[in-house]
């Protein structure tokens, strides 16, 4: 069942918010010991909110499609009175006095909060093998990682514990778990969704967005969380539109760019064939597929890594003397960031501006880009390398290779499932659009879903 469907059932009186929350909590109860998707389950609060939603709906006070819908947020979003750890030891006892902007908005939309989701420590990695709260496991195969850093968000949505989960994406951390767990995952344009109250990793790269069961559900969540917020200095004043694609929306004439370079190099064969099939499907719907040459994405990834290393180490500098409280992979990244000269950070930001201008020229040729979200399906927990294109590649660099640069550009990007690999693990298609064109990429994604580009539900119960 999707948010749209559940919202319809609620309003038709065929199900109550209390029943939806009870069922979701039962799924968490059955599955969380194995998947470790949640760090904190707020069952009592959730039931209270669900009862309130039922009362309000019965009284005709309808807050919109998320009213009464069970959701959860990555544990780096501040939640008033509820522990917020960022998956770390250093924040393990932090109980915020206020809600993050995204949490405020979800509450205001009447969503029922089931709790706080596990993640890679400090959102600084892609395995979600958290050394403090345990490894999150992929619902499709518990021996595999769910991706990260929003690994709990991907796992909880795929395992149908929640209808939507909030994640954050600094170098792919929404789109990677969406790809590995077979969910939709939307990284909105930088500035579209307030970062206020989300523990930062890289100030200029952090994006907040939803993971959901379908593209239209991601659009519904975006409708609730988008908008200007004066508390976030980079928040955009652009008007918020209705992002939800119409039923039967068409994509005839939409110009889809398919990169000749970079994005289709060193892929699993299953990934390439599934993504190419999605491209063919879009063409059969009337879209115009155009091969394009994209700017130097390898250079952009290098620039994005330097920006992130410097910003993350700056964020965590107050904890410099507490080295023993970080996992080894995160500590190594923090140390790397500390050793970079300030000139490298400034020059990386200069290169970033130049590359964004180069990339902007693409949008005169095409309306969006289709690429794989990740070059491979979810690796096994503990794997440090993956074999791609005949060579071994660091798991972290492989997973971020096709998504990280988009963070440096601030562009909206959607991952949606487009197939299953030979190991029955999901494959993600990434759709990237021009700044603030979420409506377009969501429409294209929804049209593909309508045309049958999706995967069966995760076989978990």
């Amino acid at each position, binding site marked *: 069942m999707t948010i749209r469907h559940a919202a319809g059932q609620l309003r038709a009186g065929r199900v109550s918010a209390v029943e939806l929350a009870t069922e979701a909590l039962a799924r968490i109860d059955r599955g969380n010991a194995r998947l470790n998707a949640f760090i904190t389950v707020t069952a009592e609060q959730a039931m209270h909110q669900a009862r309130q939603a039922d009362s309000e709906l019965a009284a005709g006070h309808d807050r919109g499609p998320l009213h009464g819908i069970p959701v959860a947020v990555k544990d780096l979003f501040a939640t008033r009175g509820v522990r917020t750890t960022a998956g770390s030891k250093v924040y393990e006892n932090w109980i915020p006095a206020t809600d993050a902007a995204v949490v405020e908005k979800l509450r205001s939309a009447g969503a029922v909060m089931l709790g706080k989701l596990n993640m890679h420590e400090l959102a600084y990695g892609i395995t979600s093998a958290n050394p403090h709260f345990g490894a999150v496991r992929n619902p499709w195969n518990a021996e595999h990682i769910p991706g990260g850093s929003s690994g709990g968000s991907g796992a909880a949505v795929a395992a149908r514990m929640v209808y939507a989960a909030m994640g954050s994406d600094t170098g792919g951390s929404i789109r990677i778990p969406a790809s590995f767990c077979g969910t939709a995952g939307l990284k909105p344009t930088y500035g579209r969704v307030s970062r206020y109250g989300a523990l930062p990793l890289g100030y200029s790269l952090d994006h907040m967005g939803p993971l959901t069961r379908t593209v239209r559900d991601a659009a519904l969540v975006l409708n609730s969380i988008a908008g200007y917020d004066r508390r976030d200095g980079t928040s*955009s004043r652009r008007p918020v539109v209705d992002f939800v694609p119409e039923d039967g929306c068409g994509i005839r004439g939409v110009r889809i760019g398919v990169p000749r370079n970079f994005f289709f190099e060193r892929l699993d064969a299953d990934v390439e064939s599934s993504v190419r099939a999605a491209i063919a499907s879009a063409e059969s719907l009337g879209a115009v597929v155009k091969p394009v040459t994209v700017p130097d994405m390898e250079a952009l990834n290098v620039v994005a890594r330097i920006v992130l*290393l410097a910003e993350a180490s700056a964020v965590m500098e107050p904890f410099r003397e507490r080295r023993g409280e970080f996992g080894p992979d995160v500590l*190594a990244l923090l140390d790397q960031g500390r050793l970079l000269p300030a000139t490298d950070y400034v020059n*990386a930001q200069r290169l*970033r501006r130049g590359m964004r201008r180069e990339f902007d020229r693409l949008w005169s040729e095409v309306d969006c880009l289709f690429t794989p979200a990740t070059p491979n399906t979810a690796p096994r927990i503990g794997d440090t390398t993956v074999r791609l294109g005949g060579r071994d590649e660091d798991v972290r660099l492989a997973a971020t290779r096709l998504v990280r640069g988009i963070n440096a550009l601030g562009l909206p990007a959607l991952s949606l499932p487009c197939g299953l690999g030979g190991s029955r693990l999901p494959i993600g298609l990434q759709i990237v659009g021009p700044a603030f064109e979420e409506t377009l990429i969501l429409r294209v994604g929804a049209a593909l879903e309508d045309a049958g580009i999706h995967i069966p539900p995760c076989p978990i119960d």
Partner: protein
Amino acid sequence: MKHWRAIAQAYGLPLTAGELDRIAPSLEALEEAFRPLIGDLTPGLEPCIEFSALEDAE
């Protein structure tokens, strides 16, 4: 190759030999990839310090 141990010491970062071994190859690879990019920078290209995804229209 940069002398990462000396840089760490100058920064007051108490890295063990093992910790240094873990990060030095990554830093070196990053350095190799990044250094050539800087050569093309023109003085007028300013950094994205206050970043906007759509600079001119905001």
